[in-house]
């Protein structure tokens, strides 16, 4: 296999097509990236009550997200320890114990019964067939050693040594907060609309991560929807006009987005959702509350962003979470979850839901065209001749500026491929292996060095 430096050449601003189509590289990604990084696995609204569970994915593996009787959220590998049978084949539900249909081993997360989540509690024929000799304590379900609930979003890592999640987010946290916090500035305060869209796309998962980390340049993809106009204030375009978008990336972390630079004063209110006076009025009141709640605290609004490796979010219009689960080098399963302010009036939630669904997802008038590009870019990159020629990521190289308020953060300007370089730079670091101390050390800013020396 080619060396990582030739696959991702940040100096030249090129990335080999191999990393989008190669089986061996894909296999290594599963170990070195999906086996170590913090991954988005769901939302607490998917498991509101004790014993609720939701079946999610981490990389190519099925995991069970479950809330135990003590209220704690656990993540378990969805595979029986006896013969590997997939324990939960439904998408979710509520259960006291996970019982395998193959030979009947059963597992529990109830802290009163077990010491570790997913411990083996029931073995048919334990006394007779096993003669009481099976060491049940060592045959519990594999449970994820690191799980956090961050403002309702659930994240997990298989690596016990992974940095704390908030350190992993680093300075980019303020942008994720802007998507998850209440519009009026209160922490948390969002809820998910029920149900998760899941669909298969025959493209490499990184196309989607790259798309949402900050690729304003792909506007032509969406010209048809812009001509029609689906924004909530009428007229052309997809959304209400965003304020001062720029490319904000964290090369030492791999995260980035298209968003505002941080600022202390709330800009003047601009009417949005003008087709829906009740909703417009809600956002006017929210603006006033936001001015009061935030005072002179640092704040941003977010357009889109990607948390390395495979979670992206839209923070404003629409407001949604996307995950890109790898299936093979040339296929992913994409998920979308939609967010609204938890205490918003029903009409605000309804208008938001309708707008999100005409924008995003496989039936979304915007997103449907993205998939066309990702799929046929993947297909046209598979041939041995095509693979010799790397993709070009040179836009804006050498023109990024540090962001004083956000240590480790860089502003690439409105149109720049800075954040794709951030993404693939971090991808390369993870693929090289190395311990988290080195991975989290400040000063890893290779993505910002100028092209061509």
């Amino acid at each position, binding site marked *: 296999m080619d060396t990582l430096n030739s696959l991702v050449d940040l100096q030249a601003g090129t990335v080999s097509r191999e990393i989008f189509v190669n089986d061996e590289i894909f296999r290594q990604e599963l170990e070195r990236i999906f086996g170590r990084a913090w991954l988005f696995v769901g939302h607490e609204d998917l498991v509101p009550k004790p014993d609720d569970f939701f079946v999610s994915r981490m990389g190519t593996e099925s995991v069970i997200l479950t809330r135990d009787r003590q209220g704690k959220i656990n993540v378990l590998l969805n595979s029986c320890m006896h013969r590997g049978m997939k324990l939960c084949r439904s998408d979710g539900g509520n259960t006291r114990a996970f019982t395998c249909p193959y030979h009947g081993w059963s597992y529990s997360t109830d802290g009163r019964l077990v010491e570790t989540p997913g411990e083996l509690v029931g073995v048919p024929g334990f006394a007779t067939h096993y003669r009481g000799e099976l060491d049940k304590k060592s045959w519990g379900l594999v449970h994820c050693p690191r799980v956090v609930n961050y403002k309702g979003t659930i994240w997990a890592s298989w690596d016990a040594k992974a940095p704390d999640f908030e350190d992993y987010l680093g300075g980019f946290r303020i942008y994720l907060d802007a998507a998850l916090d209440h519009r009026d500035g209160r922490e948390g305060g969002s809820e998910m609309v029920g*149900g*998760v869209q899941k669909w*298969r796309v025959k493209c490499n998962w990184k196309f989607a991560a790259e798309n949402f980390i900050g690729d304003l340049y792909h506007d032509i993809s969406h010209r048809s929807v812009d001509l*029609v106009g689906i924004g909530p204030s009428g007229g052309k375009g997809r959304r209400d006009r965003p304020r001062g978008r720029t490319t904000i990336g964290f090369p030492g972390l791999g995260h980035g987005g298209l968003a505002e630079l941080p600022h202390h004063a709330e800009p003047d209110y601009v009417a949005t959702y003008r087709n829906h006076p009740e909703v417009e009025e809600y956002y006017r009141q929210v603006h006033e509350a936001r001015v009061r709640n935030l005072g002179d605290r640092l704040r941003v609004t977010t357009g889109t962003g990607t948390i390395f490796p495979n979670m992206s979010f839209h923070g404003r219009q629409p407001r949604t979470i996307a995950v890109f689960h790898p299936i093979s080098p040339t296929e992913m399963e994409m998920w979308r979850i939609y967010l609204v302010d938890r205490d918003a009036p029903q009409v605000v939630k309804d208008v938001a839901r309708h707008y999100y669904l005409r924008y995003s997802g496989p039936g979304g008038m915007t997103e449907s065209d993205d998939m066309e590009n990702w799929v046929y870019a993947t297909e046209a990159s598979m041939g041995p001749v095509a693979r010799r020629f790397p993709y070009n990521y040179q836009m804006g190289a050498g023109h990024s500026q540090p962001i004083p308020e956000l240590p480790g953060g860089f502003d690439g300007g409105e149109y720049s491929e800075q954040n794709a370089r951030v993404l693939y730079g971090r991808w390369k670091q993870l693929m090289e292996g190395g311990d988290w101390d080195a991975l989290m050390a400040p000063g890893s800013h290779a993505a910002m060095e100028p092209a061509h020396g």
Partner: protein
Amino acid sequence: MGEVMADDRLSAMLLEHEIRGFLHAEADLLDDRRFPEWLDLLAEDVRYWMPITRNVRHDQSALEYTREQQDSCWFDEGKETLRQRVQQLQTGIHWAEEPRSRTAHLLTNIRIVSALPDAASAKEVEVRSRFLLYRNRIHDETDILAGKRLDHLRREEGGWRISRREIRLDQSVLLAKNLTTFF
């Protein structure tokens, strides 16, 4: 008495024949890509809704489909947004449909489950059917989407109009990269 019965059964047969003809003609408009004419078959207050299907335990079938007007779904449209979708197709730069998909809407098991006030003078009917939507585009991109449809039709001036369409897709993970065709 016997003649009345025969009349009722004849009315039901004639209505079913009429409705089947309407739905087949509608499918022709979609497969012939005559989308503006298709739009004309939709009532102004049409509701076009496609919930997400989930895998649930046998005794939790109430959770199998996401809830109308509350949860996420694949489509939740009125006439205005369906019109916008047709406009988008007509721009010629809606890349997901450029070049256009070939579709075949196969409609079967068409059954009238209610007719109001009655079959002989029906103003509103509820029709169940199965669909198989075959889509092929470019070279090898092929989607086969099958499921159930529950349509409400209303007799208006000028003929039958679709006032509600609920589409239940028999897939939980959608095995198509996008949904840029109508059901």
